[in-house]
């Protein structure tokens, strides 16, 4: 069973939430922290549930998301 890792370059995130809206497993959410731009960046709530569909990365306008598989 492939495990996927989603990484966020937090300081590029503008908190637009497009990725959150398209995640079929609902495992993305805004974090409590504030990044250097002044936005709440997005983070993964449950990495193990990720199915590697890449919908989040496809929807991100800012190149925040990287997805690796193993």
């Amino acid at each position, binding site marked *: 069973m492939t495990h996927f890792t989603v990484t966020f370059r937090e300081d590029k995130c*503008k908190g637009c939430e*497009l990725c959150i809206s398209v995640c079929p497993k609902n495992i993305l959410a805004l974090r409590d922290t504030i990044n250097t731009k002044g936005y709440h960046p997005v983070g993964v709530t449950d990495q193990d549930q990720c199915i590697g569909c890449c919908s989040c990365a*496809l929807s991100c306008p800012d190149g925040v998301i*990287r997805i690796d598989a193993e």
Partner: protein
Amino acid sequence: MKPIFEYTKGMREQDTHYCPGCTHGIAHRLIMESLDERNALGDTIGVCPIGCSVTAHQYFNVDSCEAAHGRAPAVAAGIRRAWPEKYVFTYQGDGDLASIGAGEIVHAALRGEKFTTFFINNAIYGMTGGQMAPTTLLGQKTTTSVDGRKKEISGMPLRVAEMLSTIDGAVFVERVALDSPAHIRSAKKAIVKALDVQEKRLGFSFVEILSTCPTNWGMTPVKAQAWLRENMIPYYPLGNFRCPEEVK
């Protein structure tokens, strides 16, 4: 660990100035990915419009120039004749392409110019603060149509893809949207095909990309994608209008 999605080196490290959720960022990435994947970043020259993406040259990792409002297809025609072997594209919004530049885009199509135009249709003027565009929908409120676009004053919105598809030289014409991951994948395919058309020197290739403008539409980025789906797609149908046999 192997990457299954990483940001293309076709996009420079510079953070974009675009509003949160603006789909310019997605469109930029799809185009640059497509050029990166065919190892063409070093052989591409892009022409930026006047509009929010006037400084796209700070994000595209290819040789680029600015162009006067609407003139990008003429500028690209000059560049294409300078370097017949390179990839050349224009990237334009509603005002640039469908209003002030309406003449230039028609003649680029007419001459079958061997470059690709990417048309960002978000039914409004973004950079200047939300005025009506030729693509603004009937009834849509903007800062210069405060009671909503009226047919008797402004006419019906312009369907650019349909219009250009009547011109023989426009050999590849497709309309796509960026409102969902599925549509984003289709948009990428259309962009790749448009570049294939250019690579084979078949004629003018054109991709109209329905996009959002959350700020000037007055809604969140997520709601803006829904608005696009519910309002723009019915009037601006998605699909291919013309495609040469060689790239089908």
